[in-house]
């Protein structure tokens, strides 16, 4: 049974804080981010942050729900502790994309979708998922 997150996880979390400029320990788990999140994320934003607070980086970075965040910034705007959950989630996505597979491809989307898509969706989607 895993009771300690281990040095690898803790190092990854320190790098995440450095990269995002966020202080994860500032979160006091009020859940306001999760209450306002329109993306139905599971695990929810506050749960992802709790993973990180406890040192479980792998659980957070591999959570499928990070890919449902649409950076509407509702969580970031409402956080009473001035934590930016959207930035932390983006940091997790970037870490994932830098080390593992991308989450969208032109081949998968297909010509018809791309021909009819709104340009800014394609640009921002490729930035977030590729």
């Amino acid at each position: 049974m895993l009771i300690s997150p281990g040095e690898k996880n803790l190092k990854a979390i320190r790098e995440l804080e450095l990269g995002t400029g966020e202080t994860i320990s500032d979160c006091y788990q009020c859940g306001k981010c999760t209450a306002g999140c329109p993306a139905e994320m599971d695990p929810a934003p506050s749960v992802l942050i709790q993973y990180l607070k406890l040192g479980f980086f792998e659980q957070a970075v591999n959570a499928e729900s990070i890919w449902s965040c649409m950076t509407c910034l509702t969580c970031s705007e409402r956080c009473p502790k001035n934590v930016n959950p959207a930035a932390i989630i983006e940091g997790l996505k970037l870490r994932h994309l830098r080390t593992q597979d991308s989450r969208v491809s032109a081949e998968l989307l297909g010509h018809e979708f791309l021909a009819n898509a709104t340009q800014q969706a394609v640009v921002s989607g490729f930035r977030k998922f590729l």
Partner: protein
Amino acid sequence: MSEEDPVRIPYYPGCTLKTKAAGFERSAMECAKQIGFEMDELKDWNCCGASYPLTKDNLMGLAAPANILIEAEKRCHEQEADSLLITLCAFCYNTLKRTEFAFNTEPKKLETINAFLDRKYEGSIRVIHYLEYLRDVIGFDNLAKMVKTDMSKFKIAPYYGCMLLKPKKELGLDDPEDPVIMHDFLDALGCQTVDFPGQVDCCGSYLIMREPKKVSKLSYNILSEAAEYGAQALVTACPLCQTNLDQSQADSAQFSDIDEVPVLYFTQLLAIALGLNTEGHQLEDHHVDPRPVIADGLEGV
């Protein structure tokens, strides 16, 4: 105002305004001319990147918007224009405005980007949204005096979405939880403004690339609520909100229990209020044709 040369404001269009949302640009430009200012498109512009990088270590994301601010600064110097850069697309506004904020508050970032681009941005540009220009420079009370069409039969809900308002600290356009700028705009046109809670809910944004069903559901929540509050149509300032809300209505399973709700760009409605010819404003290109609602609003007034 019409006696003098119109004020020329440097204008950044962005990718979608030249393609999918060309009707948004055209209607905005024609309205501007009628109101008394000219949108002067930057000559050498590139894509802004569409989404502002949220992590502090992602400086590369600032290079593209920095290039745009540099072009705008160059233009303002050449023409001795006010240091404004006007935008229409909410994504472009968000990206450029946040870049402006970052450079104003973190000079080190500006120094790094200037060195990387081998160009020099001096930090003089103020990014301004078209709606903001109408509110702060023209004035909604003056705009009201320019309205030629009786709009009193139009029941329109303002839809703000996210990128026009958040983060408030950096954009400062309006209150992200309880905005009024588009309400005041609709009031100035003389419409019946329909206030509804979903006005600041997210439409699903770029999730359309991965989870279109979720976008349909979010769009349905927004549109069904607006209809419940009595809106005949929505107005928006974001091409992605427009296309998500409009085209999601093709998902007949999700939208089985409500009537279609047209989604207009606020400038398309402004053009009607100013009595302009709407040819070329691409009203016919929307998935949900707004023309019956418009015809209905104009009938018998």
